[in-house]
């Protein structure tokens, strides 16, 4: 089983809903529960919102969302060509945020709701967030067999 879809969108807040719905729709090809699809929606919403707020704070830019199914795993990559992150290590600190109105919860949501995610960034060049999730049902089945 394998599939691939790609969305390229402007960093506008009214595109966030489209991004998360597209991701959930794409992910539904795998045996995710409704609860897991909700978690994917939140994770994508957080990643895309981060692009809008942090990557392109002054002007609109392009957000690339690449979605793949490899075997039974969903892989979603959200990439921007924005300002990048000066200190990538700092974003892992609890409640880290560079914006007063935000509380650093976005990455915590992604971390909590997905199996794993990777973040790479370079100041002035942009940020890439890679997110991975496999349906719990499948993990349970594999555990039962082993």
């Amino acid at each position: 089983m394998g599939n691939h879809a790609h969305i390229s969108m402007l960093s506008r807040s009214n595109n966030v809903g489209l991004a998360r719905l597209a991701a959930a729709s794409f992910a539904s090809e795998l045996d995710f529960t409704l609860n897991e699809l909700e978690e994917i929606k939140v994770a994508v919403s957080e990643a895309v919102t981060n692009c809008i707020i942090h990557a392109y704070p002054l002007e609109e830019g392009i957000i690339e969302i690449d979605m793949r199914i490899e075997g039974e795993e969903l892989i979603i990559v959200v990439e921007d060509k924005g300002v990048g992150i000066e200190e990538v290590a700092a974003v892992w600190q609890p409640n880290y945020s560079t914006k007063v109105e935000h509380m650093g919860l976005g990455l915590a949501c992604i971390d909590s709701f997905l199996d794993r995610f990777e973040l790479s960034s370079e100041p002035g060049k942009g940020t890439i967030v890679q997110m991975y999730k496999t349906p719990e049902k499948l993990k349970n089945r594999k555990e039962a067999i082993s």
Partner: protein
Amino acid sequence: MDITTELEGNILIARLAGELDIETVQAFREKVVPETERPGVKTLILNLNKVSFIDSTGIGAILGRYRFLEKKGGKVLLVGLKAPVKKIIKMAGLLEIMPEYSSEEKALNEIGEGRIA
């Protein structure tokens, strides 16, 4: 996002419907925030019964109202949390500082009995 507000004495009831994210948080800031800043308003009952989605932007907006009202000796009460919404709110730790009720009536009764507001 549809938002209606109702003032009952020093209690503001805000009823939200739809998705609370970076796109719709502006409606929250325009309709709920000024109402909580009215003189005398100390308690906010936030009815999220018709909210189908929330992310950290929405959580931040709610937390902002909590911090504002807490300084005035007030608080925020949450009503009607659907499972996906409750999961995020719980994860963010909001249920440790904001009580949750199944209905506005129960929240109002609690305020009446406990003289919270």
